[in-house]
């Protein structure tokens, strides 16, 4: 009965929950929940600010409305994920993984839709679905499941099996091609392998292989020139393709001109005049920097750090290795995307199409990330059960 109540708390009466000290709902991590809530609020404001339109015309709320719908869906998905006992996902891992791989295969087929040079979307009516965002969660669950199964003793054969888990979707994503998402996969994999117990020398070896792969990728014909340029322009903004250097410079101008206090919500000239491209999606951090200033942008980063610390702490508290690895996977995913996305807008990382978690406009990403957070919350809630 307890486990049933844990999975479907809505079916029990509130009274019984209060009496049971191990009831999962008593152990919701409110700090994690609150931080993400604040981040999503900032994100919503910034999405609106960068899409409300300019001039004296009435504000355009179309994007805001869609964004709110995505966030609401994401929170619902998070709640549902939290309700289910996370250990059930061990059983569902192969299914999730298989479905995601099929979707990734489908997206590079003629069924997929190309946007900005990457064939990464399914167009379903008015909605665009990006399977690679969901594949991140599926790979985390898959790796966590296998990693927990293998335990701490991972030899080369087991390592190879573990690597195959992200390897297949990674290969399919490179067919789109989407080097940014591929980098996220690498980050997730490295983070999780580090904690599974892969030997230090193997980690070192993998790092070496990874670096070689990056160099190889840049010199191979797999990426178009403009994609390579996006990846390398941050090293020397003056020498890049004009459009890429423009993005980067305008992004830095926007953030830099925000100063300590910012220009005020809806008052950033770079933001309101659409001078920075893709500002409600990949470059939304520039809007935060310009309009909310150092205080706002640093607060956002602090909130992200709080989220990271909570997830890391939940990993420590987890009662099983599967939970640990789930948390590590989600932490690696978030930490890398935050670093990569914010770093790119400030000119210290390559330009890639990676969203800023819980802030950028984008349905697939928002929903998938909330689902990931639901898994982590589940680990925390069920650390005694």
């Amino acid at each position: 009965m307890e486990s049933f109540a844990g999975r479907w708390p809505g079916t029990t009466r509130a009274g019984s929950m209060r009496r049971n000290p191990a009831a999962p709902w008593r152990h919701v991590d409110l700090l994690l929940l609150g931080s993400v809530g604040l981040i999503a609020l900032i994100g919503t404001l910034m999405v609106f600010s960068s899409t409300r339109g300019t001039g004296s015309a009435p504000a355009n709320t179309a994007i805001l409305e869609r964004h709110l719908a995505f966030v609401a869906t994401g929170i619902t998905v998070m709640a549902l994920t939290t309700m289910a006992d996370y250990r059930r996902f061990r059983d569902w891992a192969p299914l999730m993984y298989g479905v995601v791989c099929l979707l990734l295969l489908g997206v590079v087929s003629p069924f997929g839709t190309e946007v900005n040079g990457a064939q990464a979307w399914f167009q379903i009516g008015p909605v665009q679905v990006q399977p690679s965002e969901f594949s991140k969660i599926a790979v985390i669950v898959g790796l966590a499941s296998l990693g927990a199964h293998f335990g701490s003793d991972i030899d080369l054969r087991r390592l190879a099996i573990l690597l195959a888990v992200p390897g297949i979707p990674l290969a399919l994503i490179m067919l789109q091609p989407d080097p940014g998402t591929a980098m996220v996969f690498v980050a997730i994999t490295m983070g999780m392998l580090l904690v599974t117990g892969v030997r230090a020398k193997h980690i070192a070896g993998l790092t070496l292989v990874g670096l070689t792969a990056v160099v190889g990728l840049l010199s191979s014909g797999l990426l178009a020139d403009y994609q390579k340029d996006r990846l390398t322009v941050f090293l020397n903004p003056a020498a890049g393709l004009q459009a890429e250097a423009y993005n980067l410079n305008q992004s830095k101008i926007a953030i830099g001109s925000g100063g300590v206090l910012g220009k005020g919500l809806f008052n950033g000239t770079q933001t309101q005049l659409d001078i920075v491209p893709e500002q409600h999606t990949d470059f939304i951090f520039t809007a935060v920097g310009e309009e909310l200033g150092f205080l706002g942008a640093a607060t956002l980063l602090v909130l992200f750090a709080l989220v990271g610390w909570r997830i890391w702490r939940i990993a420590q508290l987890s009662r099983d290795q599967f939970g640990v690895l789930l948390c590590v996977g989600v932490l690696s995913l978030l930490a890398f995307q935050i670093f990569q996305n914010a770093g790119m807008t400030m000119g210290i990382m390559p330009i890639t199409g990676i969203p800023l978690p819980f802030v950028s406009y984008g349905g697939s990403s928002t929903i998938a990330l909330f689902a990931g957070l639901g898994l982590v919350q589940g680990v925390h809630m069920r650390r005694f059960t």
Partner: protein
Amino acid sequence: MSQRVESPRLRLGVLGIVVIALFVPLFARLWYLQVLSSESFTEAAEANRVRVVQVEAPRGRILDRDGTVLVDNRVSIVVTVDRVRFAELEDAERTAMLERLSAELSRYGSPATVEQLQDRVDDVRYSRYAPVPVAEDATEELKIYIEEHQELFPSVAVERVAVRRYPYGTRAAHVIGSVGEINDEELEERANKPKTYIRGNQIGKTGVERIYEDDLRGTPGQTVFEVDAMGDPVRILEDLSAPPIPGDDVWLTIDIETQALSEDLLAQALEDARNRRVSGSNLPNRGNAGSVVVTDPRNGEVLAMASYPVFDPADFVNGISSTRWEFLNSDEADKPILNRAIQGVYAPGSTYKLFTGLAAMVHGLRTPEQPFLDQGTFTIEDCRGPGCTFRNAGSKAYGVVDMRRAMTVSSDAYFYSIGADFWNNRGRLGDEAQQETIRTFGFGQETGVPLPSEQDGRVPTPQQRKAQYEANPELFLTGDWFTGDNVIMTIGQGDVGVTPLQLANGYATFANGGTRYAPNIARKITRSGSPDTIKRSFEPRINGRVEMDPAHRQALLDGLVGVTTRDGGTARATFAGFPNDTFPVAGKTGTAEVDQKADTALFAAFGPAPAPEFQVAVVLEESGFGGTAAAPVARALFDVFAGVAPMPVIQPGGALVEPPLEGAEVDDTSERPADRLGQIAEGGAD
């Protein structure tokens, strides 16, 4: 749970450190961008935000001394293409639209090919935010057609713009000058001027338009747009925008009637010279070019400055065609673009004798009454050969002459002897004694008239001769200076060169008793729309003073008055019937020899002596005798100045007509002064 508890804990710790290591550079970078270097990024953001479009202001007007408008602005219909909208059209639509536009422009009399239109639209030198002009001075019909068929001409607009208008046609064209589109060089020169210039702006190119550019140019207004990332205007920032302010009005010293009369007399005199038969072996008169300058000797104001041939400043409105420009600069057309009053350099001939005569007295080589026997020739002492003897014009012998008489009859021999004496006494007086006196009257240097490209003329010296020869030994026969060089200088020949304005100004300096003014061309500048608000006024500018012994001056003045009044005076016949008693005119004829060409006819005169109010200089290229060809121009002008003939009235377009009869006191002098030219008898030569 795992059996090896330590290991996963340690590994999680490593992961935590890695994550912290990712956050630290983000904070550091954020600090750097937003706190340490925020200022420069703020400037860059502001520059991103706005675009400034200049609104050109109308140019100020140019008026004559009494306020008659010589130059103002009129509306020209200009067809423009909005580049931003043009770029948004489909390729095929663009081509089709240009083809239609080309056809309609041609149909309504402003032909342009599709290629020409395309080139204009593509010209990157035009501002992106201001429409590009593709046809100027289009007809009202074309404007109506395009506006009624706007759907056929997307991105095309028809605007009215202000361009220069010349109510009196070519009158005073050389003084007024022209305006044209600013070129790269001018743009660079004026980069930091308060009245900013941009590509496509009009700027004064020559004449007064150029010299008083800073006053005539209006203060451009500006419209400040806030723009988005595409550069498309979002809204106008009213508090940063400003309306244009028209330029200021320039009032010239020129009197337009005197100017027009001088021009007509000049053209008539040249035509008469062309029709005059020449005697013997003389070359026929081409009478192709010349200049008349009238100044006020009391203050240096230029009352008229005529140059022939003339050009039409209206040719420059909307840009002059290259063929027209080449024509205006061609030798075949005698370079109508030249303002010969300040850019033509002529041998002054006998008009120079005023100054060489004074030089002789100043340096003690002659007294006014010292007699000289003119036998028609002069031979340099101790010199043998054909180059040692110099003849009077026409080999006339004038008998015993003094300074007065020599001036009146224009005795060359008298002055030849002065030149030889200067050289023979160079040990005492120095090599350049004669030149020193000549230069005090402003010769060999710019007069300082506020007009561009003034020539400084030539007063040759032995030193110059030597320097020229050493610089270009193959170009000159010799670097030495001979007695003969001094001799012919006294009669304004050799390498001597003066501009008509220099000649007028030299005579005016003598006329007013020795004050050399820098001629003024403008009296004042007034604010646009309020002629009583004087921004600047131009006071007489004194460039130098010549101290003259009253006895010397009187002798020369007597001699000059004799030219028009006494028997043997070289312009006496021309001034027959002139009221010499009430308005004595002092003048000097000149007939300067020019290699391979007919003589230059000159006449410089002022009146009424001894306190003159008018100074006239006439120079006619390839026109023969000064007394015959040039003096009648001055006579006709002095008829008007003396009140003998009425001042004609100028009509719109520039034509001169007789003034309406006002009463009985005006008798038979109502004939046009220009008509008098034909009636004046062929007079004495000099």
